[in-house]
């Protein structure tokens, strides 16, 4: 059995950098069970299987409110790690030590890693490491993770500390301290029997955690005594129990800092950050600069770099599949098998794989924004715009990326600060019309609204945004009840992102995407191909109107009658659109047997009226995203059921809105 080591710390303290430095390439990414919180595990270099490092989410405290805090606390209490590595930002010791104080209550061996020491020293400030070690009662290791300095010292400290018992420290003094001792006597035995750290249990009781009262079977008599003790404490300290507890911790920290941290001035990075922010969060320039940065990223991702790379990859895949098919043909492989490989698997997976350059480039830029500290500023600048719908500024970036492609947008929600925000953003993002839907708009507009192209486009985009807003309000009042996580967020100092972190992040996303392409998308491609190429007697068909898919299309077509389009070709195209949105266009072209744009326009005129063509557009904007986005949704939500509910909701909204527009439109026009 390998020893378990938990890595924990605040956000923005360089935890990921240390994790990467300690584990190298051995890491693998998963989720904590049941929530969208990411969990990374890896083995510590040189120790191979002996020491497993588990990266806990970046949190500021162990209070039981957000899912990040809950999974971290659960992990620490129930999985009994052999050691905690608590990493803190040395330029911001005071607030970082708060979590340390809570961790110390858990009675698990700990080492304290002081990151960003280079910044402290360069600014002429200094920290008395020995003094800190003495006062905190644990090993303190100064490092600079981004410069790879001190990593060996951390490993040495792990080796030395891991089998040592946790040092008992009786910190603090004053009324809270007295109360803690008094209550300890009451619950000590029960906590011990349950294998829970006593001091942790007591602080939970002081905080009024009803679960802890139940867990420890505190009877009414003891409850009464505890209440009495706490009232005494409140009287003596002149404040309520919650504030008194926090205050006790901060008072201790202030004392430690007074004796051990000598900072004459703000660090260079802090001074620099203030200067940068004068521009980037400027009253008038802040928003235009943000929009400019996003436009630039879009331009790089979707046209300058992405498009040619995508074409290149497309050509490569086409070349490979052509050669493979030719090879199969000269070797007399059965026609159906060649069709399966060529039209099913290679075409399906290939078309999705060609998105890879876009994903890689986009996440390269997003990692830069995240690691530099700019993403927090985006949240600061854009928060007000998203507040009314129950989200915070942090959700703005994924939603914006949604206009490019839903897949990276959904993947980008992983950086959001709370489980609730992540889920809500995942549901709403596909309403932002993605670029793959443009060919559909092009086709319909050319056939029905050639003179009002711009107006129709803007209307379609606005309908998407509007539906997202309405859905958000609806979800806030039904599914995502309860208090949103408050928007009280650190604005970290700007730092130059490390190349290694950015690369690893991009690699993670690329790996994730390739994995999806060969699992969910692979299977979906085969299924759709089968439905498209066979009839109910399982004979391969030449004419696509004879296929199972067409039959299903005809079968479901009446459902769309209230929306104005009950032609089987329209509904079949919607179904193939699930593989990739562009397929709506190719399917309609094939099924109408149109050989030119003119004949396509004429054929479309027999399927749609201008009004129903418009409702068809509205439906395509809103209904379930493509299979790749579905796979991303499933991956991030970590649940098939929730993913299916999400796309059902999206399709339901599409139906409802299209229905309203068609019915009202028919009356007015």
């Amino acid at each position, binding site marked *: 059995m390998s020893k378990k080591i938990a890595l924990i710390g605040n956000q923005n303290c360089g935890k990921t950098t240390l994790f990467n430095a300690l584990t190298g390439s051995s890491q693998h990414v998963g989720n904590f069970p049941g929530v969208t919180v990411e969990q990374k595990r890896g083995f510590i270099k040189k120790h191979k299987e002996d020491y497993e490092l588990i990266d806990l989410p970046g949190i500021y405290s162990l209070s039981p409110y957000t899912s990040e805090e809950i999974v971290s606390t659960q992990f620490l209490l129930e999985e009994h790690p052999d050691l905690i590595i608590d990493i803190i930002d040395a330029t911001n010791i005071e607030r970082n030590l708060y979590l340390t104080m809570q961790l110390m209550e858990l009675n698990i061996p700990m080492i304290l890693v002081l990151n960003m020491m280079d910044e402290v020293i360069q600014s002429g400030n200094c920290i008395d490491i020995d003094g800190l070690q003495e006062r905190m009662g644990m090993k303190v290791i100064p490092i600079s993770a981004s410069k790879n300095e001190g990593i060996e010292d951390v490993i040495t400290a792990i080796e030395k500390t891991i089998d040592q018992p946790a040092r008992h420290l009786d910190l603090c003094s004053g009324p809270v301290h007295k109360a803690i001792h008094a209550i300890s006597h009451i619950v000590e035995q029960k906590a011990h029997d349950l294998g829970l750290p006593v001091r942790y249990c007591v602080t939970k009781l002081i905080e009024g955690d009803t679960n802890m009262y139940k867990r420890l079977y505190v009877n009414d008599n003891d409850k009464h005594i505890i209440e009495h003790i706490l009232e005494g404490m409140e009287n003596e300290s002149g404040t309520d129990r919650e504030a008194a507890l926090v205050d006790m911790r901060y008072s201790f920290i202030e004392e430690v800092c007074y004796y051990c941290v000598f900072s004459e001035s703000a660090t260079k990075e802090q001074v620099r950050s203030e200067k940068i922010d004068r521009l980037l969060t400027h009253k008038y320039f802040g928003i235009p600069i943000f929009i400019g940065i996003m436009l630039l990223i879009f331009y790089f991702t979707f046209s300058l770099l992405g498009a040619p790379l995508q074409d290149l990859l497309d050509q490569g895949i086409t070349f490979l599949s052509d050669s493979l098919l030719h090879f199969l043909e000269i070797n007399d492989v059965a026609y159906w098998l060649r069709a399966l490989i060529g039209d099913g698997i290679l075409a399906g997976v290939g078309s999705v794989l060609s998105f890879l350059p876009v994903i890689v480039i986009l996440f390269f830029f997003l990692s830069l924004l995240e690691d530099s500290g700019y993403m927090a500023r985006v949240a600061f600048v854009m928060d007000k715009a998203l507040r009314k719908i129950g989200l915070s500024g942090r959700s703005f970036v994924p939603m914006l990326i949604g206009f490019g492609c839903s897949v990276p947008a959904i993947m980008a929600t992983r950086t959001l600060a709370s489980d609730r925000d992540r889920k809500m953003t995942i549901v709403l993002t596909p309403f932002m019309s993605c670029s793959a839907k443009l060919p559909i708009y092009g086709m319909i507009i050319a056939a029905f609204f050639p003179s009002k192209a711009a107006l129709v486009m803007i209307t379609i985009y606005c309908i998407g945004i509007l539906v997202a807003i309405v859905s958000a309000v609806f979800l806030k009042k039904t599914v995502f009840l309860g208090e949103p996580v408050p928007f009280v*967020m650190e604005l970290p100092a700007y730092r130059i992102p490390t190349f290694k972190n950015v690369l690893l992040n991009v690699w993670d996303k690329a790996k994730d995407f390739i994995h999806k392409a060969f699992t969910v998308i692979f299977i979906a491609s085969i299924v759709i191909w089968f439905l498209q190429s066979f009839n109910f007697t399982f004979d391969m068909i030449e004419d696509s109107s004879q296929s199972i898919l067409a039959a299903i299309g005809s079968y479901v077509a009446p459902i769309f009658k209230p929306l104005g389009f009950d032609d089987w070709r329209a509904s079949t195209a919607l179904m193939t659109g699930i593989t990739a949105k562009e397929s709506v266009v190719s399917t309609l072209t094939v099924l109408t047997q149109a050989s030119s744009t003119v004949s396509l326009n004429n054929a479309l005129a027999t399927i749609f009226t201008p009004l129903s063509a418009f409702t068809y557009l509205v439906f395509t904007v809103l209904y379930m995203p493509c299979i790749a986005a579905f796979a991303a949704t499933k991956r991030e939500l970590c649940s098939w059921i929730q993913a299916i509910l999400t796309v059902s909701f999206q399709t339901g909204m599409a139906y409802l809105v299209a229905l309203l527009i068609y019915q009202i439109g028919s009356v007015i026009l």
Partner: protein
Amino acid sequence: MTLDEIQPGKKVVIKSVGGQGLLRRRLLEMGLTPKTKVMVRKVAPMGDPIEVFLRSYVLTLRKDDASKIAVEEVKDE
């Protein structure tokens, strides 16, 4: 006076922290405890949230939440 009413550039000291539940706990835990010195640095372009400096780091919070924090001005030493 509450924290949301303070002009950017002014330094204040926290008197008490109101609100309840998750919000109050979060405010306290981020270091906004009584007697802490806070400097209001900035208001976001759309007029909300605000940016404050305390315990040698920068924090942003919404005006609504900041209105739960009672403060008084301190004279520059």
